[in-house]
């Protein structure tokens, strides 16, 4: 900004003078703030950079293991499961025992007596 007006220049000088004339106590607090920020910021970054990948890897491994275990579990045949659910829950009253003769009749080919 080479085309500064006299007003801009005066403002810049006044602000520079203010910044240069800060008292020792304020400068000390600023120094301490800087040191604290760098130490805490670096520590936080290290914590993040170390633990986030480890935690992520462990979570991924646990998910994969659960998925594999679930895939290897013996699953009931879908037709049998459906029949069980129909017989057990909705078609027959819960108090009714399955009738062996009825099941045998169901199993016969069409038209057989």
């Amino acid at each position, binding site marked *: *900004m080479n085309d500064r007006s*006299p*007003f*801009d220049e*005066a*403002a*810049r*000088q*006044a*602000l*520079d*003078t*203010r*910044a*240069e004339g*800060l008292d020792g106590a*304020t*400068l000390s*607090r*600023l*120094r301490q*703030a*800087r*040191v*604290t*920020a*760098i*130490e*805490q*910021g*670096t520590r*936080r*970054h290290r914590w993040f950079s170390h633990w986030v990948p480890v935690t992520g890897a462990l979570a991924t491994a646990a998910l994969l293991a659960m998925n594999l275990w679930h895939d290897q579990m013996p699953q009931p045949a879908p037709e049998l499961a459906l029949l069980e659910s129909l017989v057990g829950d909705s078609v027959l009253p819960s108090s009714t025992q399955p009738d062996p003769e009825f099941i045998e009749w169901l199993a016969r080919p069409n038209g057989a007596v």
Partner: protein
Amino acid sequence: MHVISLQSPCLNSTSPEDWTDTVADNPTEDARQHALDQFLAGVERRAYVMAEMATRNRDEALDLVQDAMLAFVTSYGKKKPASEWPPLFHRVLQNKLRDWGRRQTVRRRWQVWLKGDDDAPEADPIQQAADPAGRSPEQRVSLDNASDALLMAIGELPLRQQQAFMLRSWEGLDVATTAKAMGCSAGSVKTHLSLAMAQLRDKLKGHW
């Protein structure tokens, strides 16, 4: 482990080349930490003056600068190249100042609501705050020092106008970078700056 120097350099004693070269020549973590220290040492006084102008409170200003430094180091210090640090630091600082301004607005509304004093004119805590230089109202009125009058006039600007003025006129940022730092459009920056200049010229008629 790099030991951070407690010797504060004078204002502008660390040029941008110093800390960018430090990282470029030796991109280790210790060198980066050293470069961060140099960079923050170079901007801390100006950051404090900006915060003090906005808050008119030394302790609040120091807290805001420390928060801004910590947020900057955590978010950008390790990830962004050193050449991008200045505008990023200003963005973090201006966000902190804007958040502070919003909190003050909310607090003021609550105070008015709790007191139930609707007839009284709304007191502006910023206007009511003690002068950081410890001057009495009489002394402030009789100020004949142009620089003091100018600083006081800048301090009395609304926050957004103050930010635009400080970043453009003091830091020398261009409109686009100022807009990025303030989180608004370039047009808004121009509007804020124009309003700020009009107010300053009006208040400082006797000096300029």
